[in-house]
């Protein structure tokens, strides 16, 4: 009993200390990046259909706050979004090939989002990676290879940010299949989250 009492002050100090340490994110740059993201869009709660067009690995890159970790992830849109709103394309195939010539294909969900977990393509990607997006939409086949390689960024939107006046020289625009927007394209109207609400 005496021993327990003697150790009590140490315990009393240690518990709040570790609680405070674990509550802090040690990387302020990461914290700022997470905080800079917009809030969840109404109608598109957290899950595979949320935050289309945003840099997925900011939260899903292993530093949190999301618990699910991705190796690569992004959104495939129909057009560049210059003359109409951005709409994701479902069932598009994203074909990846890394520096070892290992290949992996992942398919977008109905808002255009795709992701692969580290275990999906174990040991890969070994950067640099080349990528193309392929889709059949109605009678049209789209095949859009990326013009340069991916150096090391796992989030498409890490480079392909939605253009704004502030970032125009630093983004090639969103990942898209068609060179121009098509106002008649509605996305997957049967999707449980309307593609237009998915967060862009």
């Amino acid at each position: 009993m005496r021993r327990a009492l003697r150790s009590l002050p140490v315990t009393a100090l240690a518990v709040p200390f570790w609680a405070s340490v674990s509550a802090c994110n040690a990387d302020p740059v990461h914290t700022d990046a997470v905080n800079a993201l917009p809030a969840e869009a109404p109608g598109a709660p957290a899950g595979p259909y949320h935050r289309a067009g945003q840099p997925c690995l900011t939260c899903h890159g292993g530093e949190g706050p999301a618990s699910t970790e991705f190796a690569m992830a992004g959104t495939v849109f129909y057009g560049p979004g210059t003359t109409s709103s951005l709409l994701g394309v479902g069932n598009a195939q994203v074909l990846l090939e890394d520096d070892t010539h290992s290949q992996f294909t992942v398919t977008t969900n109905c808002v255009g989002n795709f992701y692969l977990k580290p275990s999906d393509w174990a040991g890969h990607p070994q950067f640099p990676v080349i990528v193309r997006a392929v889709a059949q939409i109605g009678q049209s086949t789209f095949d859009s290879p990326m013009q340069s390689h991916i150096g090391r960024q796992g989030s498409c939107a890490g480079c392909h940010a939605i253009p704004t006046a502030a970032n125009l020289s630093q983004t090639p625009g969103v990942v898209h299949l068609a060179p121009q927007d098509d106002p008649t394209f509605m996305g997957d109207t049967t999707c449980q989250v309307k593609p237009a609400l998915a967060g862009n």
Partner: protein
Amino acid sequence: MSARSLLAFALTTVAVAGCAVPDENRVTVLQAPDYDQFKGVAVDGALQPAGVSRLLERRCATLDCHGQVSRPMRIYGQYGLRLVQDGSVRPGGVQPTTADEYQANYESVIGLQPEMMSLVATGVNAPEALMLLRKPLQLERHKGGAVFETGDDAYQCIATWLKGHVDFAACDRSLQ
């Protein structure tokens, strides 16, 4: 003088020396490799398919690597970061690399280690003395890993430029 006074004097001297203002009139004379060859123009004036800049643009300057404004070796180009001046709009991927982007790339490359660049350009030191090659060869830490190998086309393109006569065919092959 007591030991305490001596210590205080020493600390004050160090602090004052540490606050010395850099000489704004100092000039570092730089012996740099040829700018035209960097852009892809041969000595006889013939335009080549690729020079050093084009190699760096395609192999190093994606937006997630050296196509970032935060990089000391910052590379602009058609398929990456664009140099925007005077509020002009220059979206990526369409308009070819411009003259001011070539100039900015050149200044970035030769300005990384100006004194060492002079020693390499005048043949005192070997090309591998520069981080420009040490990093992609992984002779020192490079976040992008080993992206060149000694003797390969990318290496030849840069090393021959540093020696004064770029192997344009190697530059072109390095993009294949």
